[in-house]
């Protein structure tokens, strides 16, 4: 679990060009980390690659915070 959180945070930091320390579990990509809509699409693409899964568009829309990303990946990997 912590491992997934760390990996997600690392990707978020890399993709959005922010310091990893700024990426909190409750951070919203758009409101807190300054992502635009294209950034969030790219972020989902990066998550798909990191965790070797496919995130459907309807699910991707709901991933707007670090917590939601961690939850999604956790639920998905357990399947």
């Amino acid at each position, binding site marked *: 679990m912590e491992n997934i959180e760390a990996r997600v945070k690392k990707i978020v930091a890399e993709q959005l060009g922010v310091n990893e320390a700024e990426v909190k579990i409750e951070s919203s990509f758009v409101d807190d980390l300054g992502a*635009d809509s*294209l950034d969030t699409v*790219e972020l989902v*693409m990066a998550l798909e690659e990191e965790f070797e899964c496919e995130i459907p568009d309807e699910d991707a829309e709901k991933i707007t915070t670090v917590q939601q990303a961690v939850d999604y990946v956790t639920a998905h990997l357990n399947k």
Partner: protein
Amino acid sequence: MSLKGKVALVTGASRGIGAAIADSLAREGAIVIGTATSEAGAVAISARLAEFGGLGMELNVTADDAIENLVAVIEKQHGAIAILVNNAGITRDGLLMRMKDSDWDDIMDTNLKSVFKASKAVLRAMMKARVGRVINIASVVGVMGNAGQANYAAAKAGIIGFTKSMAREVGSRGITVNCVAPGFIDTDMTRALPEAQREALVGQIALGRLGDAQDIADAVVFLASDKAAYITGQTLHVNGGMLMP
């Protein structure tokens, strides 16, 4: 304007403008994959491009998933596509009063939807690379209109609108998206026109002659090069002064 080692995909590369584009990009050093609708066409493209490290591949741009699958194969075998030239196109000319739904749909699928599909398919890799070139072949007809080509003109105008939108979406990622709008170019497509119509058209061209496929290819090579890095969302008219928008 070296394009050395860059992977380029050119649709509709077996003859006419597409063939000139594929060959020109290859001569600048790009690894060019040119598509044709038939296997024989693909083989002929391979024969032309082999010495430059390129090849021909079969593609029906209207078939489900065909473009996506082709892009996946290219990325696996040659690496990410750096240059996409959406050139494939057909005509189904006729006066509007007699135009069949199928004439309209065929043009939209082949000339416009294929641009959307191919551009989307290459975008992921270009976004990641933070650089890329998408060059769409529009037409002077898409800007000025032409009797007997309502479907073709609509699709070509659609390409221009698509180009501007995509340019705005992905500009922040270093990807440029432009159109080249050929005027009246001497190809099989225009040779099919009646002689009287050809002559009337030439009369409207400031330079007084038809264009050559190479004229279009040269514009594409420029837009594909690093020299055009600050040009995006534009339509470069290559028409001998037939239209000056």
